[in-house]
């Protein structure tokens, strides 16, 4: 799935997501905007938390 988003500068941004049957979501070309959305959808996801500037870095590895 490809997802387009607009930023304040109105540049087109593109992230690709793979949603697995077990609920895991993998992201490619992950933008900050998409990371924030994924963080909202998975509140306890530390992997996403540490990719958002201004948030404290937490443990565990991030899939590519």
């Amino acid at each position, binding site marked *: 799935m490809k997802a387009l988003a607009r930023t304040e*500068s109105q*540049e087109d*941004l*593109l992230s*690709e997501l*793979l949603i*697995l049957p077990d609920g*895991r979501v*993998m*992201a*490619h*070309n*992950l*933008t*900050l905007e998409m*990371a924030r959305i994924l963080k909202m959808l998975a509140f306890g996801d530390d992997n996403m938390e*540490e*990719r*958002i*500037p201004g948030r404290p*870095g937490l443990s*565990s*590895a*991030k*899939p*590519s």
Partner: protein
Amino acid sequence: MLADCRLCAHECGVNRLAGEMGLCHAGAKACCFSAQSEVADELELIPTFAIAFSGCDLRCDFCITGAESWNAAAGEPLDAQTLAARASRALARNARTVMFLGGEPTIHLPSVLDVVARLPADARLVWKTNAHGTSQARDLLEGIFDVWVADFKFGNPACAERLAKVSDYLRVVQENLLWAAGQCDLIVRHVLMPGHVGCCWSKIAHWLAAELPDARVSLRSGFWPGWHSDRHLELTRTLNDVEVQRALRIATDAGLELVK
């Protein structure tokens, strides 16, 4: 340089300025298929303004950007000035680095350097590569980039031949990694592939432990079966927990320093 192209280890020697094409099918003019700030790379590099060049000298069936990596004309023709201006704005906003990737940026080195020359002198530059370049490419890269993120994809010649149609893979990649380690910060990245923890990752880990024990290693578990992965039965799925845990044990046992 492009009149006798020997930037990648295929060393086709074609005249790209005259329209001849080697294995990568790249011409004289580079194209880009993506340029945006991203946060999926190693934590010390993000946010990074990532500039993705179209075309690649490898033919990995599992390539997550296969449509653009196998087509050097994908995307838009490079506009170095505009790209550099966008990258500079991103750096001023919140980007920590500017990353050059592909496809494979090595095959477009002259264009890459054109962009680099227009960036702020203090910009932190990342070279994201398949590490399949030649000594000629390395000569051009010397002293330019602060960080190399080098993909070490295969741990044995058979998997490299079967999955990426490339021969002499290990020698070339290892030569590049040893050179890069003496030049700049080096992060060796390996995307774990289902069914290849033993034949590929284990071999890579042991080589790194022996030859580049101080290298930082980024072990990625997010393989997804895209592009032509379905040509290989084992690549039609994602990794399972057993494989990921085994891979981490291999890294730990080898004494590797993993980065997130």
